[in-house]
């Protein structure tokens, strides 16, 4: 039987209150949607950011409004991480379902704060060695009108004591978090906070004692704490992006929200369209005038946009597209991450056309790639897609973004003066680098025709075979032209190892952690994270060729990334797929096990 701290019962074992010092702590708060799990995690994150920790924050919510299980997670570490710890150290559970969900992942010495209002926890759900703290959240909450906020603040008060935050720190966090509330609205939260603290007192967890200790990491450089969605949108804005049209869809809506807030002050135009077809076509209309334009969506919405993306490729219209990948197929699991739009992004639409697909691996890259994509779309006059995964809605700490690194490059844009010097202006001039000088509507003397039909240099529809071939070749030369500037893969680990691991996007973090652990099993790996998904760059094929065997780790049932890499010419017999498609993110523990299983079989 696990230890139970009765509501009014034996005080907590003082031995526990020595304060276990930690540089890596994973916390989960869960209950029904609306229980406020996200808020508690946000508050704790804020406090620990203040103490200089690296924070990874994620959530796991049902695609329904109220009701449905919702869980929020946070991991605080001293080195940056982008996955949860294997084990949950602290769980705040607002219902039994929350404990059930966490059950298999609770650390042996975990602390479980359980809402005991509706009865006790059934047996055998938590480790024998765990400490259970029943708290009648709901019963306490009925005293207050704003129940959810109440629960949050109460929970946070208790939590502060458990992880050894000072009461001032905690109150300060609460104030900053709710700074938009009026004094009257805020007051009950403070009361609830105190309630949580006095509950802790009652249990013997005084202001100076705590179960965990997370010492302040001392003064630090400024860092950025952000989701991939916001970071990419910020990159777009910083690189001169000024037009965005979108249609709400989980988990892409946040890109629109960010821009709706931050773009208008610098003249940006943000539109919520009537559907995805309108969204991308509004952006196309704007892009035709030379504005840097973007849209964002998720799988089902991107699928609707494919004709239009191909049109940008054909008609040579710059366009930035963010795909916040979610678990498919079809509506699938809107709130769950996946990496299964790789096929769609890299190879879809009718016919052959130039496009570029980037896959940032962390929020910093989301920012810089967002800016890079914005410029690149102008330089190459074609669609540039950012393929995000769980990165899109998870928050991470990252080195402070450097706005000075962002330049604005208009590519081959012609001004009126440039045009005046020309004998003739042809929108689709055949050039060696495949990119035609571009004069946008409004430019005197450079009237031209833009079309998605095959055309001659003037933009007049033509199906003349020689013209057609010249135009196809020109368009494909663009990709050759920009190819050298595309982000190469990030490689790390043991360069001498005959075993390689490939993964994209958010998986870098969990691969790094797994490899570190596998080292203790005597295994070493060379790791490779492509940052450009399309075109597939030579370095990825070369990586596969230069290793005896390569694990391609991905979140897709069919192994779309492996498929892509094989199609680029990497030898199939060296590739082993490690696939995950249960809607959850990889944990290091799981990945280590998967690799070990295959290594042992090998």
């Amino acid at each position: 039987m696990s230890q139970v701290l009765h509501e009014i019962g034996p005080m907590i074992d003082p031995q526990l209150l020595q304060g276990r010092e930690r540089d890596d702590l994973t916390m989960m708060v869960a209950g029904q949607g609306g229980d406020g799990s996200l808020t508690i995690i946000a508050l704790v994150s804020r406090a620990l950011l203040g103490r200089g920790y690296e924070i990874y924050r994620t959530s796991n919510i049902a695609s329904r409004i109220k009701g449905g299980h919702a869980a929020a997670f946070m991991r605080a570490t001293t080195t940056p991480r982008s996955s949860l710890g294997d084990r949950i150290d602290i769980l705040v559970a607002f219902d039994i379902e929350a404990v059930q969900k966490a059950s298999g992942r609770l650390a042996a010495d975990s602390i479980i704060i359980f809402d005991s209002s509706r009865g006790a926890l059934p047996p055998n759900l938590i480790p024998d060695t765990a400490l259970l703290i029943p708290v009648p959240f709901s019963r306490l909450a009925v005293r207050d009108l704003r129940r959810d906020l109440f629960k949050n603040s109460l929970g946070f008060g208790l939590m502060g004591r458990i992880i050894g935050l000072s009461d001032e720190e905690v109150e300060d966090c609460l104030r900053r978090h709710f700074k938009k509330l009026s004094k009257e609205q805020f007051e009950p939260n403070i009361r609830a906070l105190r309630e949580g603290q006095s509950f802790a007192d009652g249990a013997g967890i005084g202001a100076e004692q705590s179960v965990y200790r997370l010492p302040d990491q001392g003064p630090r450089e400024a860092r950025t704490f952000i989701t991939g969605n916001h970071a990419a949108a910020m990159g777009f804005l910083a690189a001169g992006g000024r037009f965005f049209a979108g249609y709400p869809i989980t988990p892409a809506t946040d890109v629109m929200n960010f821009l709706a807030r931050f773009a208008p002050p610098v003249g940006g135009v943000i539109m919520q369209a009537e559907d995805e077809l309108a969204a991308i076509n509004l952006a196309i209309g704007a892009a035709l005038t030379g504005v840097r334009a973007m849209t964002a969506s998720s799988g089902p919405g991107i699928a609707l946009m494919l004709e239009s993306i191909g049109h940008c490729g054909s008609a040579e219209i710059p366009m930035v597209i963010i795909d916040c990948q979610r678990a498919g197929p079809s509506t699938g699991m809107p709130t769950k991450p996946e990496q299964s739009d790789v096929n769609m992004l890299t190879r879809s639409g009718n016919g052959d056309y130039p496009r570029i697909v980037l896959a940032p691996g962390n929020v910093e890259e989301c920012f810089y790639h967002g800016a890079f994509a914005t410029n690149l779309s102008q330089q190459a006059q074609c669609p540039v897609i950012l393929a995000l995964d769980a990165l899109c809605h998870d928050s991470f700490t990252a080195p402070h973004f450097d706005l000075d690194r962002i330049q604005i490059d208009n590519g081959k844009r012609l001004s009126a003066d440039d045009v005046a010097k020309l004998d003739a202006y042809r929108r689709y001039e055949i050039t060696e680098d495949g990119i035609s000088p571009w004069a946008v509507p409004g430019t005197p003397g450079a009237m031209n025709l833009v079309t998605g039909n095959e055309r001659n240099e003037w933009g007049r529809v033509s199906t003349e075979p020689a013209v057609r071939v010249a135009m196809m070749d020109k368009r494909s030369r663009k990709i050759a032209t920009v190819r050298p500037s595309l982000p190469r893969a990030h490689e790390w680990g043991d360069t001498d190892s005959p075993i390689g691991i490939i993964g994209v996007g958010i998986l870098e973090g969990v691969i790094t952690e797994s490899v570190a652990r596998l080292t203790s099993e005597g295994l070493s790996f060379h790791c490779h994270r492509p940052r450009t998904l399309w075109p597939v760059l030579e370095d990825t094929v070369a990586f596969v060729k230069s290793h005896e065997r390569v694990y391609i780790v991905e979140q897709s049932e069919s192994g779309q990334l492996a498929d892509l890499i094989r199609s680029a010419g990497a030898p199939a017999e060296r590739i082993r797929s490690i696939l995950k498609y249960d809607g959850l993110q990889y944990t290091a523990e799981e990945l280590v096990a998967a690799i070990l299983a295959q290594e042992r079989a090998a």
Partner: protein
Amino acid sequence: MTKTYDTGHPIWCAGCGHFGVKGAIQHALDDAGVPMHEAFVLAGIGCSGTVQNNIGAYGFHAMHGRVLPNAIGASLANPDLTVVAAAGDGDGYAIGAGHLVHALKRNPNLLYVVMNNGVYGLTKGQDSPTKEVPLAAPEEDPLDAMLLGLSIRSSTFLARGITTRSTQLNELMVMGLEHARQGKGMAFVEVLSPCVTYHDTYPEWMNKIHDVNADPGYRAEDRGMAFATALELVEQDRIPIGLIYHGKHPSLQDEILRELVPINALSEEKAAETRAHMDNVLAAYTV
């Protein structure tokens, strides 16, 4: 002078109504004195969807059904442009119907011209939503886009002309373009533009048209009267033409743009301001 594309000859069949529509658009641009480089003519896909090739302005060939979103995007991005969107009845009323509803609702500053011939010309003669006796469903009533337009409360300019009455058509087109250029919103001009090859409606339509403005009591600014009049005519199997409705409503540009400046050029003077803004944005995420 820099040579630009040759405006050449339209590809339409001799006698196609679309010639008249092109003429009227050109006339309106001329009349308003719009320099060719400030006019942006976007067209859908269809026989109608080639009109931009022969005008001499900046031209864009949209995807089938998407010309309105494209035109709205352009009109927001560069308010200095005179934006004309053109479509066929298939393009505009079938695949593009949803965008039409929402464009009227938004009231962007542009001229939208639909060449209604009751048929899919380019794909060789299938019924369009305005076809009177559709093959597929013999008694499905044709869509009347003026009635539809009237049902959207922020619509501001609804007119229908016919290529055989070029004076009126020119007038409507001039007024519509003016409406858009003066920032009053979307001018929607439907033109009865017969397809002589697949669905020659000249004789039929000549018999059916009725100019609502011929009645001195007709008040185009009265939405209720406009609807009642048009409905009555339509129910008598007649086709209302003329300036059906002309009202006032803030345009999309009024609502959404802070300033009426093109955002397609990033202004150098504002660089510092912009940078300061970005610093603030970043600060919101700084820990």
